[in-house]
């Protein structure tokens, strides 16, 4: 074997060893625990804080409204659909930190006329023409008891 090749071998060995050391230091501890990724990334993703509460949390205090809703057409809808995220309200119940929408635009999200909406699924109302003398839907309708029309 030529002399110059013999001298190159240790050089290559040193490079490979340095590469392996750097590689070892850069790879996170949990890499490869479940697959070709950092195992702790699962925990990181699971530990993100919630913003939306859940219907169960609402019912703990508002069982009266739950009962009122039971016979209503809105009974299957989660409280959060209309009232917003609500976790702040669960932790610190105040009237200020929960949404109480009832405008023509809000109710129209579901109930405005749109040919893409199945008429079997939802009652559709012309949100511009329907009782135009009143301002908001909740001026007449109680969203928790839709057919009990207010005077």
């Amino acid at each position, binding site marked *: 074997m030529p002399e110059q090749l013999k001298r190159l071998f240790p050089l290559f060995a040193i490079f490979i060893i340095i590469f392996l050391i750097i590689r070892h230091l850069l790879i*996170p501890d949990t*890499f*490869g625990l*479940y*697959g*070709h*990724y*950092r195992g702790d*990334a*699962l925990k*990181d*993703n*699971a*530990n*993100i*804080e*919630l*913003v*939306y509460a*859940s*219907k169960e949390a609402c019912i703990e205090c508002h069982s009266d409204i739950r009962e009122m809703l039971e016979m209503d057409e809105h009974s*299957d*809808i*989660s409280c*959060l*659909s209309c009232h*917003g*995220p609500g976790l702040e309200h669960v932790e610190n119940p105040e009237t200020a930190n929960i949404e109480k929408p009832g405008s023509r*635009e809000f109710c*129209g*999200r*579901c109930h*405005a*006329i*749109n*040919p*893409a*909406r*199945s008429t079997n*699924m*939802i009652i559709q109302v*012309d*949100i*511009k023409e329907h009782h135009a003398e009143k301002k908001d839907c909740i001026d007449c309708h109680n969203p928790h008891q839709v057919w009990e029309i207010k005077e």
Partner: protein
Amino acid sequence: MGNKGIKSSRRKFVKKTAAIAGTLVASSLIEPFKLLVYATEEPKDEGPWWGVGIDISKCIGCGLCAKSCKIENNVPEDPFFFRSWVEQYTVYNDGTVKVVSPNGGIDGFNQEEDKENIFKTFFVPKMCNQCAKSPCTQVCPVGATFETPEGITLVDSEHCIGCSYCVQACPYGCRYIHPESIVADKCTLCYHRLTKGIAPACMEVCPTGARIYGNLRDPESELVKYMKNNSYQVLKPNLNTGSKLYYNALSAEVI
């Protein structure tokens, strides 16, 4: 002399080739190298294997799913960043197809009354398909996106370098680069809620039950029952992505 030389060098050549090939085969059996092979099969372990069902016939296009997703997951408000959005398809009598998604549907859809020229129209909510053979995870050069043992595709935001290969690789357009952190972001099926036993935000707020999720390994789960009772379909089945987002009443116009 020359004859012998040729023979001996041929023997050497064969020996060397065999040694190199043998080393390669042997090294491919060593455990660390196995990591380089991506799992393209459903893991055999116990535990949930999540899937999603969307019933287009039930969707009324309220857009609450898209709105709640933005709030729950800190998605930027600009109208081009979405983890979950709703499209309205309108097929006209002359065969043209119009697809609209005003602000991703987060403010709902406008009241529309012109029915004359419409052949049919429907809403299609879209989100990550949670593919079992994700094209997006396969292209990541740093192992920062992956399929969890529960079948959910997640992003490791600490290790993502923001190269956006995965954004291009997703055939469903379900990824974007977050403008603040400059890393890839996508639907996690609300992994932080699922692991606590709470429904994902979009499923919680859906007023008609058009969106459902469930464990595909549990024959009693809501999703498996939905799949038994409906003729479901996935988007772009020809791409063999192993999509686990099962649409009911999916029309051929949807891409």
